[in-house]
């Protein structure tokens, strides 16, 4: 994909050293060590190291390569996927990983298990999942009731909604038992050995691990003996602990600290979060954002290049599209639909008949240009860019009220009252547009049922599910054109990033979904 | 040589942003061994301030000049720690109010042992943790408690202050003061808070100590009777200075100072007969005349009983506050209820006033039995409380206070008219008109009590119940109020039910008297016969205890 903002990346120095314990400070803590419960960022980052995926996705090209599955194919409708599995993979309790394991895991992920207190955690991610058939010991077929092109990426996905494979013993354990490390058994390079909620999670190397994805260029077990994830919720304390040497490495580094840390000789490992760029999606059912000119004006008033120059950190990127630069199918709109032009914004509003009122706020037919929007408190710089956009809009007569922590706003209220809703959804696949904005699915832009040409819009989105790989590119472009040029559904702000900082820790690796993978990391050097 | 001498002592109290106020102005005074010197004076005359300087217990915001000599040292202005050497051993102190002068959460025994230990430690006599010494201290403590007149010290040794009566507490305090075997005792109104009978016992005991041990005593009192009874020398203080000094005999033979004269006149114990009413310019209360009853007895109390049950810490206690009480009061006369604290005087008064319901018995007012409505009752009967400040709403002006009953009863009388009535009522109680706009909190005790009386009269009642209405006042003020009451009674033909614990006052005002003890009437007859020829032992004791009653002017 296009590489508008090369991510800062740690140089690996010298030959890998085996052994050692890594203390790793971060913001959150897994709310559970059950990898199938992965709604939190920390949860997915931790479990990424104790489980493996069917496929491995290249973080730069988005291409898939073998991991637990050596071969994969799908039918023309993209409703059936057949995976051929590696035969040498074992769970850490010694049991074999095979076709039945895949079936049992997918079934439980989709259906849950009331008796064990397991919730249907995967229901909303697996979509039109129908069943899994065990074709032979090591061949398995996953069937959907409708086309599901994005399942391929899901089988390599490590972010929210990922599919993790657990041993039978774990699958038969109750929700409560799965809070004990000894009951959480999987195939990954590490085993969870200690879990103190909100304080510490410790994972220990599996010495018989030999099925690292070939594309990663690593063979055999991980280098590190042990990784201790330490939760330090307060950003300034986290950085302080890093600086004072209390921990050698830390995650969730705030953009404001990047410069300071680099100056102090810390190596930063950073990557843009693939998926949606962070931004507002417009509510097309509400006045005045149902007026396309208003939407255009807002998009034109957002100073994306300016943000990159003055507000954002090195690791964060200017938004060029609704998709981040690395997602396969990405197209650049920064010189077109997303061009910053405050005068144009004004003109658009003037032309559309929005006249400035006595209080400086524009109005038309008694409707004032007063908007409500949600922000994002988890990404620190989102506060800043939204506030900057807010101030810019104010200067052209548009008033925006932003609720920065929208977590307790119910969905209904969100669609009924908010003109601008923050989105920031990770997934290294263009399918993310479909789940989020397709009027028949997520309908994030709240496109009303009687919207002109609705059927065509839905069709354009649905088409994404019918192709993969290169064939998908034109379809993705069509959807992005629809989003940015024809309908103006979103106002992207910037591309978010994940940053880890370390001293004396080599090769901290952020995978295709920007989750940590410690298989190739070692301590030493320097 | 004197034990204690003040030479030209002046003491000021300072307060931030205010000019220092002088509480003692150039006093000189000495106490010799075996001598009992009393300081008399009205409240605020600087008595306590002066004597506290002799034991270093002035508050931090005081400043002293002059010389206070204990033995050879000039101790004026010493710090607590420097003074510690003299306290207890050279000079003992008996505080004013026994109720609050003992630590409420320490057993009595510990409190006196503390004093003994302080002394022994100072003389390096107390090796730590020696059982024999503990025994010795305990036996010493017993000895001093006995010396202070507590015959069974073992019984109270482990008790807490609240479990003792006022007299016993005062004796404990005396024991503490004596335990250091001081040469000088300083007593600040040691008996003012006690019943007369107890007061007499305590004072007798102090007298005995002085004679037997040769201790010098400096006694403060506001009761000239007490001073005249016992002192070798009397010092009268006013506004911080000594206005007169002399022996008891000299005082009785004529005093030079005008103020001392008035004190002498006002001392109830020295009175012999009833007050003669002075004429009053009648200002007929505009609340309007209402028919006055013609019954012979204004109040008839028959077999009234009342038991109070209280819970404390989950345990129930019952007190028989009135036990089959009966008495009658003729219209237009004064009936006094006397007795020690807790005898049930207030309870009966409140039952008569309808403020408390009796368990059994009957109260007939103005010849009518049965329930009276509040409004109806308050037209004929009014109640005057002991403490005028708590019975007058501090936010009301004097004018509003005295006419509040009129406002409630006579909606037809307007604000302006009420103010006129208020002024008339103030005339009646001899309070200048300028006070009409004052708030109750800005008045002195005597003035406030006048307001309370004016208020009681505003509805032109027939009966007024006065519950210790003068007990809280200084003697000189007390005399004025008593005179006023006599005047008002004559002018308005009122019936008084007068509650007091002071037999001296009874002589001045009452036609008939009932002596109460533990809820029951011991004796009830006309004043002259009860006081002149008491039938009961208890009444005799009461009469005997009135200070100054043996003296002849």
């Amino acid at each position, binding site marked *: 994909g296009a590489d508008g903002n090369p991510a800062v990346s740690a140089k690996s120095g010298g030959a890998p050293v085996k052994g050692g314990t890594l203390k790793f400070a971060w913001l959150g803590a897994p709310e559970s060590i059950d990898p199938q419960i992965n709604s939190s960022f920390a949860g997915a980052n931790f479990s990424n190291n104790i489980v493996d995926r069917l496929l491995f996705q290249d973080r730069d090209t988005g291409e898939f390569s073998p991991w637990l599955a050596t071969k994969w194919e799908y039918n023309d409708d993209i409703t059936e996927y057949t995976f051929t599995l590696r035969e040498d993979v074992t769970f850490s309790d010694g049991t074999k990983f095979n076709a039945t394991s895949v079936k049992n895991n997918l079934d439980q992920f989709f259906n849950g298990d009331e008796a064990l207190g397991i919730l249907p955690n995967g*229901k909303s991610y697996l979509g039109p999942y129908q069943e899994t058939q065990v074709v032979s010991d090591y061949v398995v077929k996953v069937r959907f009731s409708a086309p599901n092109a994005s399942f391929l990426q899901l089988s390599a996905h490590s972010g929210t909604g990922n599919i993790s494979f657990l041993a039978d013993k774990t699958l038969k354990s109750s929700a409560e038992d799965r809070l004990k490390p000894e009951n959480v058994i999987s195939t990954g390079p590490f085993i969870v050995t200690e879990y103190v909620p909100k304080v510490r999670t410790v994972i220990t190397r599996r010495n018989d691990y030999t099925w690292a994805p070939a594309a990663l260029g690593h063979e055999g077990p991980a280098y590190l003996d042990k990784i201790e994830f*330490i939760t330090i*919720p307060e950003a300034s*304390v986290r950085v302080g602990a890093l600086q004072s040497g209390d921990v050698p490495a830390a995650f969730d580094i705030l953009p404001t600290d990047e410069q300071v840390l680099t100056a102090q000789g810390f190596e930063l490992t950073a990557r843009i979060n693939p998926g949606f760029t962070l931004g507002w*999606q417009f509510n097309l059912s509400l006045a005045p954002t149902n007026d396309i000119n208003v939407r255009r004006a807002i998009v034109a008033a957002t100073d994306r290049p300016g943000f990159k120059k003055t507000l954002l950190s090195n690791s964060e990127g200017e938004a060029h599209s609704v998709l981040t630069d690395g997602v396969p199918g990405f197209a650049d709109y920064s010189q077109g639909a997303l061009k910053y032009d405050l005068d144009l914004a004004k003109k658009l509003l003037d032309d559309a008949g929005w006249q400035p009122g006595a209080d400086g706020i524009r109005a038309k037919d008694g409707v004032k240009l007063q908007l409500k929007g949600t922000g994002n408190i988890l990404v620190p710089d989102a506060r800043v860019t939204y506030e900057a956009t807010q101030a810019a809009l104010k200067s052209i007569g548009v008033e925006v009220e932003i609720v920065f922590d929208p977590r307790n706003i119910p969905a209904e209220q969100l669609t009924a009252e908010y003109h601008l809703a923050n989105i920031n959804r990770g997934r290294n696949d263009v399918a993310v547009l479909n789940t989020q904005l397709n009027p028949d699915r*997520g309908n994030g832009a709240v496109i009303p049922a009687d919207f002109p040409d609705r059927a065509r819009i839905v069709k354009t989105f649905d088409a994404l599910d019918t192709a993969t790989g290169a064939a998908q590119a034109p379809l993705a472009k069509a959807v992005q054109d629809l989003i940015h040029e024809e309908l103006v559904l979103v106002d992207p702000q910037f591309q978010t990033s994940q940053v880890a900082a370390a001293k004396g820790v080599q090769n901290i690796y952020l995978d295709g979904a920007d989750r940590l993978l410690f298989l190739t990391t070692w301590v030493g050097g320097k | 040589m004197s034990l204690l001498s003040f030479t030209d002592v002046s003491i000021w109290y300072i307060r931030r942003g205010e000019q220092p106020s002088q509480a003692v102005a150039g006093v000189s005074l000495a106490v010799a061994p075996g001598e009992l010197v009393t300081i008399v004076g009205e409240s605020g005359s600087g008595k306590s301030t002066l004597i506290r300087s002799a034991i270093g217990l002035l508050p931090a915001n005081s400043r002293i000049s002059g010389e206070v000599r204990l033995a050879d040292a000039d101790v004026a202005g010493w710090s607590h720690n420097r003074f510690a050497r003299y306290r207890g051993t050279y000079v003992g102190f008996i505080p004013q109010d026994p109720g609050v002068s003992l630590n409420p959460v320490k057993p009595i025994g510990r409190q006196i042992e503390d004093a003994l230990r302080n002394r022994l430690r100072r003389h390096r006599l107390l090796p730590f943790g020696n059982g024999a010494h503990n025994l010795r201290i305990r036996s010493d403590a017993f000895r001093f408690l006995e010396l202070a007149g507590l015959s069974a010290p073992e019984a109270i040794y482990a008790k807490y202050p609240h479990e003792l009566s006022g007299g016993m507490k005062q004796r404990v305090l005396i024991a503490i003061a004596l335990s250091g075997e001081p040469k000088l005792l300083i007593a600040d109104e040691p008996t003012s808070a006690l019943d007369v009978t107890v007061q007499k016992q305590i004072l007798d005991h102090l007298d005995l100590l002085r004679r037997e041990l040769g201790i010098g005593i400096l006694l403060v009192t506001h009761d000239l009777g007490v001073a005249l009874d016992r002192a070798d020398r009397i010092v009268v203080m006013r506004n911080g200075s000594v206005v007169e000094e002399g022996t008891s005999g000299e005082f009785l033979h004529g005093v030079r100072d005008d103020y001392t004269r008035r004190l002498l006149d006002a001392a109830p114990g020295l009175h012999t007969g009833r007050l003669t009413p002075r004429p009053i310019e009648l200002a007929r209360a505009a609340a309007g005349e209402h028919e006055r009853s013609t019954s012979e007895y204004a109040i008839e109390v028959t077999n009234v009983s009342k038991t109070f049950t209280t819970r404390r810490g989950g*345990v129930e206690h019952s007190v028989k506050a009135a036990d089959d009480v009966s008495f009658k009061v003729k219209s237009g006369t004064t009936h006094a209820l006397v007795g020690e604290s807790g005898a049930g005087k207030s309870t009966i008064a409140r039952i008569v006033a309808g403020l408390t319901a009796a368990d059994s018995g009957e109260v007939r007012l103005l010849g009518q039995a049965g329930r009276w409505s509040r409004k109806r009752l308050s037209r004929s009967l009014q109640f005057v409380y002991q403490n005028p400040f708590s019975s007058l709403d501090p936010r009301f002006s004097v004018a509003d206070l005295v006419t509040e009953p009129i406002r409630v009863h006579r909606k037809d009388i307007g604000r302006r008219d009420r103010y006129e009535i208020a002024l008339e009522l103030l005339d009646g109680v001899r309070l200048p008109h300028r006070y009409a706009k004052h708030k109750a909190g800005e008045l002195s005790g005597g003035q406030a009590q006048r307001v309370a009386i004016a208020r009681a009269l505003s509805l032109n009642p027939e009966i007024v119940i006065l519950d210790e209405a003068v007990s809280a006042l200084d003697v000189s003020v007390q005399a004025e109020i008593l005179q006023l009451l006599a005047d008002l009674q004559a002018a308005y033909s009122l019936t008084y039910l007068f509650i007091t614990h002071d037999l001296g006052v009874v002589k001045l005002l009452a036609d008939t008297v009932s002596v109460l003890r533990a809820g029951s009437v011991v004796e009830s007859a006309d004043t002259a016969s009860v006081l002149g020829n008491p039938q009961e032992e208890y009444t005799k004791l009461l009469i005997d205890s009135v200070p100054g009653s043996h003296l002849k002017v």
Partner: protein
Amino acid sequence: MNYALLKLGRALIVVWGAFTASFILLYLMPASPIELLFPPNERASIDPQAFKEMEHAYGFDRPAWQQYVDRLLAALHGDFGTSVGTGQPVIKAIGEALPNTVILAACALVLASLFALSIAWVATYLESARLRNLISSVPPLLVSFPSFLLGLIIIKVFSFQLGWFPPISGEGLRGLVLPAVALAIPVSGPIAQLLLRNFQTEYASPYVLTSYSKGTRKGKVLNTEVLRNASLPALTQGGIIVGELLAGAVITETIFSRAGIGRLTEDAVRAQDVPIVQGIVMLVAVCFVTVNFIVDVSYPLVDPRLKAVSKGVTA
């Protein structure tokens, strides 16, 4: 005995009241707890069927009164449901967090009491009015200091600048020092104010004069006479102080990366984890009434004035 039963009854009523109030408050919350499991912008894309099933699994789909009765009955058996976020039983989640907070709060309480007591003692002992005023102005300062800033400043100075203590209180006593101090300081403010006032009133009582007149030195007067009388009434504030400690832990534990009730509270409130929040409210309410109950029942034992009066002796 009756008295203890009466107090116990009141305590139970308060606990029940807290349960009901928290149920009403939490039930009235705008969003369904299930929705809150998902990020706001993903909520629209939740499969309605899956949503229903999850709602059913947690029992949020039944009528309010039924949920109330069920929860109340369950609560009586010590079951407050399971956390919506983690699926862990509430009792267990709280049980795991509690020891940390108890240790922290206990240390903070000891520090706060000692600190408050020293201020009150010294302010009463000093003869110089100037010094006395100076010391007396410390408690108001403590009360007025924004506690959320205090922790950050403390950690910056003592951990990062001076390096005396580790910033994360993982292991050992050394890690406990800073958080305990940060929690103790705001809590000690009100205690110090109360003690200071009590010391002054008690010191002005006449029995102090009696003690002086025995020849006792000032320090001893304060220790043997004033101290106990002045500090006992502070016990009646016990329930409120314990509450303050727990509330203070919300911020302290976040800043010092300690897992405990405070962190659990903040997380749960943010994530609107209804069962956990209710569990915590109940925990706090129970702590409050227990402490108050103990104080109420034991106060008569330490204050002889409240002991059963066995007929006053009369002279």
